[in-house]
């Protein structure tokens, strides 16, 4: 589609300037010569109408959750309730300045304080911090807390254990936290190999980062043993909450012995993904780790009946961001929890687990499961069988688009020999049986097409706004801005139809 720059008509404007531009003050009176830009920086010149049409058209090239199922494994693409948005955008919240006097922001502080208590109850932890902006940000904060805890106890450790099935953020966060990553292999059941864990867990290891159910959607039944092994060597257990949607009201990470937990509020707690954020990656800890939480936290003075932002103290890892939290995401989370109640939360996990197992049961004849057992809230099957027809999992995913649905997560997790050519389906509780049946039908149809007409898959998608992209070219001939494109104008030679569709 045409870029906003290509819609520019010189002299057009899309903004209404105030009547009074303080013309009585000269520019030289307020800004030093060394700092004033010569001329105006070129942006675009379009009217408000142009902007509205441009972005409306762009939006139509996207597929959103309100368009249909979004069964991305490990992403928990569940319905984003509309009331959450309304309440998060109340004027008293969105115009609240983060450094406004405490007495003027009691409402914001109350939400942060109350949400902390709710999340503690839901996960069995003792205290949360709302600072981290996303899951990986929470991981980093959590790992820094673990680090500080050991340093504080004069017990310097260098290694972090991470299962081979973990999200890439786990090892990347551990490395940012200064730790050497040691990979723990999964066993044939798809869970942590206890013998290997016992061998690897030593007194130079801070602990283990675990997702449970893990990233193939399987509950680690060895969790009690894992807890004993890690704590037995004085280590700490880190819970990656990406898959909490399978546990609400059933099991709490705190009760299973986890010491640090991060939650992706934009997954389990229904806040929208926004095309890749903003979310929030709040972290919860057990009592012993509270002093190390990032600063500040919110406290309540029951005598004065007032909430405060207070410094966590000298043991704190410090700040992980400017200001306090992705506040509007917290309001949405708070709203969601209150609209679900305890039964709604249990129903959420129960339904999502039934959904995933239903999909698994119906698909396993056509797509071999990575592990033949019941799954949590997501199931992992593989497209291996179709390799002999020249069809890869990627092709299956692209073909799903032709049927007007978003494909599941593919090639993740990936580790030999079980999880190859993986297709990971997460059908959250907000997907109805009818939607699942339609998805299953399409998957079965595609499995048939793979055998009878593989080319249909290898050239898919056919019905999407654009088709397969040349990703290698994007790297070799890096065009990262419109100005890069302008420099290559002669070489590119786009036809009108190539840029205006």
């Amino acid at each position: 589609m045409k870029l906003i720059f290509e819609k520019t008509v010189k002299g057009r404007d899309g903004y209404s300037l105030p009547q009074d531009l303080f013309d009585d003050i000269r520019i030289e009176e307020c800004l030093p010569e060394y700092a004033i830009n010569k001329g105006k920086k070129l942006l675009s010149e379009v009217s408000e109408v142009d902007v509205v049409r441009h972005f409306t058209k762009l939006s139509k090239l996207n597929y959103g959750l309100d368009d249909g199922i979004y069964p991305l494994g490990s992403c928990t693409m569940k319905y984003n309730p509309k009331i959450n948005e309304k309440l998060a955008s109340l004027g008293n919240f969105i115009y609240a300045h983060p450094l406004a006097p405490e007495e003027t922001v009691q409402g914001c502080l109350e939400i942060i304080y109350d949400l902390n208590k709710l999340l503690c109850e839901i996960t069995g932890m003792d205290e949360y911090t709302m600072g981290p902006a996303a899951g990986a940000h929470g991981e980093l904060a959590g790992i820094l807390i673990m680090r500080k805890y050991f340093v504080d106890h004069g017990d310097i450790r260098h290694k972090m254990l991470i299962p081979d099935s973990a999200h890439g953020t786990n090892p990347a966060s551990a490395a940012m936290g200064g730790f050497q990553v040691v990979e723990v292999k999964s066993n044939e059941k798809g869970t942590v190999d206890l013998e290997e864990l016992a061998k690897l867990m030593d007194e130079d290891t801070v602990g283990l980062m675990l997702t449970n159910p893990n990233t193939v959607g399987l509950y680690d039944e060895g969790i009690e043993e894992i807890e004993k092994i890690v704590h037995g060597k004085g280590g700490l257990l880190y819970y990656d909450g990406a898959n909490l949607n399978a546990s609400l009201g059933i099991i709490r990470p705190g009760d299973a012995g986890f010491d640090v937990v991060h939650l992706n509020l934009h997954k389990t707690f229904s806040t929208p993904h926004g095309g890749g954020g903003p979310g929030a990656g709040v972290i919860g800890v057990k009592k012993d780790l509270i002093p190390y939480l990032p600063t500040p936290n919110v406290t309540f003075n029951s005598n004065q009946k007032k909430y405060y932002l207070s410094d966590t103290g000298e043991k704190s890892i410090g700040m992980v961001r400017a200001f306090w939290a992705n506040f509007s995401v917290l309001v949405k989370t708070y709203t969601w929890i209150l609209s679900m109640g305890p039964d709604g939360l249990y129903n959420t996990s129960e339904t999502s687990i039934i959904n995933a197992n239903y999909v698994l049961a119906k698909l396993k004849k056509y797509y071999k499961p990575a592990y033949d057992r019941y799954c949590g809230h997501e199931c992992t099957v593989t497209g291996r069988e179709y390799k002999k027809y020249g069809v890869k999992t990627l092709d299956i995913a692209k073909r799903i688009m032709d049927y007007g649905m978003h494909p599941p997560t593919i090639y993740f997790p990936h580790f030999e020999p079980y999880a190859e050519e993986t297709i990971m389906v997460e059908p959250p509780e907000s997907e109805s049986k009818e939607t699942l049946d339609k998805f299953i039908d399409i998957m079965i149809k595609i499995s048939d097409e793979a055998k009878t007409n593989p080319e249909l898959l290898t050239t898919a998608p056919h019905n999407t706004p654009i088709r397969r992209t040349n990703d290698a070219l994007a790297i070799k001939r890096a065009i990262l801005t419109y100005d890069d494109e302008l420099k290559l104008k002669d070489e590119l030679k786009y036809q009108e139809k190539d840029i205006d569709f």
Partner: protein
Amino acid sequence: MRYIPTTEKQKEKMLKDIGVSSFEDLIKSIPQSLRLKDKLNIPEAMSESELEDNIFHIAKKNADFYSMKPLIGAGSYRHFIPEAEKFLLQREEFWTCYTPYQPELSQGTLQSIFEYQSYISRLIKMEVVIPSIYDGASATAEAALMSLRLTHKNKIIVSNLLHPHYRETVKTYLAPHETEIIDLPYKNGLVDMEKLKILIEEDAASVIIQSPNFFGGIEKISEISEIVHSKGALLINVIVESMSLGILKAPGEMGADIVVGNAQSLGMDLNYGGPYNAYLGTRKQYIRQIPGRIVGETVDVDGKRVFVMTMRAREQDIRRERATSNICTNHNLNVLASNIFLSLMGTEGLYQISLLNAKSAHYLENLLLKSGKFEKVLNYPFYNEFLLKSKEDVSTVNKKLLENNFIPPLKICEFYQAENLNNVLLFAVTEVLSRDNLNLVAKILSE
């Protein structure tokens, strides 16, 4: 439950199809001993109308911020946001979609990011722009880490006039790397050049400055960059008030090697501190060390011009512990907000509003100085924030302002303990304050 379509009867049918007799059969792998025995102890589900009442009630415990005008910035600036932006942002195709891993179904998000990269590249004069890191503070920390990787050195020099939260965040991120962090003092509201010359040595990876700085001061970036480069270090320039970019010279033009910007001013509400967004710009030669996602242009099989996430092999999902950063989910919706905002503003709009901010701030400073109730403590050129020492106790001043529906300025002593900054306020003025508003402020404070 209105968000869960499956009925109890359907669940039974599904369990039957799975081949189990009860839900319990599916979760046998969860040890009984660890199961919750009772219902979660949280409030029972509220209806939508009860929910509204409840949250309205809590929101009312805040001040009526909608009708208040802020005289405070300090990292969070209230600028006017056109309704068209807010309206477009809420389109579900943008609002509810996932990270654009499947370009065939996400050209809307991808093209928007590309346009944003193009805008920011022109505003800061950098070839490469990472569109989104969570916020200015975490992006500054990422830039610091990037400078360590690029130079293989482990010492950074940080201006004292970098936003205190940003400084704290940099310290937090660098703690595991045992990086030596040296404070660069200020003199008269700007970086102390003589001190910089003394502090900088060949072992420094980078120098981090902010301009306009925390006091609002406009740094002499070209001079600083010469000093920094003479010792082989990189200059990281942080912009906290991005509205300044419409009128101020681009840092890339003045020798900055990495530019980090808090994008909140470009179309984001205050939201009690977040979510905001930050961009990170640099030169092409440093591209292999950039953190986070970036979008590039390519073609599809039909030859259409399309956009994809690119240079992905740096990222955590591919490179794992050797990734340039752990960042995954970022703030892409905020990128879209800024893109729409900048499109509406256009060349002329951004220039005019940017200039207006500077003018109205100077207008207020002048009025307050004339009132005789305030005096200048440091003399430096500023953009839209400035320091003034009050003759009256600042708490009294702020109380008066609050009573008159202004969010009061920052008491600078909350962040800086220098003696001459006692009883000093950091005022911020943006275009949302009209001449009448500013005259009223001066009037209230003259009484």
